[in-house]
């Protein structure tokens, strides 16, 4: 498989998965480490009434999870595209277009959800 095709596939998957995993932290209220700036400490619990920051944990989780998925795909990709003894195969134009559109739609939906989630939570809607 050509290097540009591999980059395209992995890039599509990583960008879409980052958005999905980031939204998962909101959907499932996943417990992640929070930084407490006044105490200079990290805790897994969300203590009410004490300023804390969950943003670092959310992004670390989404990057690592999306990275893990992309890593797995990177290693199974040659097997997926190897047919009939051929080890090299290029991505077809139609597949390239569909992959790009699907990744874009997923990212847009996730960004819209983030907007809705926060606007709803803070009374903007």
């Amino acid at each position, binding site marked *: 498989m050509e*290097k*540009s095709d591999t*980059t*395209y596939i992995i*890039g*599509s998957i*990583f*960008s879409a998965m*980052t*958005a999905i995993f*980031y939204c998962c932290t909101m959907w499932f209220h996943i417990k992640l480490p929070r*930084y407490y*700036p*006044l105490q*200079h400490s990290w805790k897994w619990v969300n203590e009410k009434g004490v*300023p*804390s*920051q969950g*943003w*670092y944990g*959310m*992004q670390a989780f*989404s*990057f690592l999870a*999306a990275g893990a998925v992309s890593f797995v795909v990177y290693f199974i990709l040659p097997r997926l595209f190897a047919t009939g003894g051929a080890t090299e195969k290029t991505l077809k*134009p139609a597949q*390239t*277009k569909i*992959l*790009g*559109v699907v*990744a*874009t739609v997923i*990212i*847009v939906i*996730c*960004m819209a959800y*983030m*907007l809705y989630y*926060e*606007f709803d*939570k*803070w*009374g*903007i809607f």
Partner: protein
Amino acid sequence: MVFLEDFYEIMLLIHLFATFVLVGSMTHNLLIVVGYLRGKFGRQKLEWLYVRVSLWAYVIVYVIGALIYPAFRVRIRPDFDQDIPWATGLFEVKEHWGAVGLALFFVYYFLRKSFQPNSEKEKLFLYVPLCFLLNIILWYKVIVSCYLTLLKGSW
């Protein structure tokens, strides 16, 4: 004492200057990428330069933003939460989109590095939307940040 509290204002200024570079390069990048949709591929080298500048500017903006966030969280945001909670809502979206934007920026960079827009046009199906999304994220961040700083920029 909160982490880097004493350097908040100077770091905020550097954050702002890097944002100027970022928004300028990405907006110019968008103008060239829109040209790709019309079949104009004459400024690919300049567009690739904008991508590289944008990536580094975004990383600088992002790292500084992450470093001064604790001081913002303790000294400024409580006032937003109490008096104008909708401002916190605007800010939180900025942070979420900014985090996703970091991943998109690296994908955008490596994607552009791996292909030539004039010879692999089908790859524009991801490249062009990413360019638009990154510009939406950046302009949202700029407008919201400037507005929130007008409401309460320091303490």
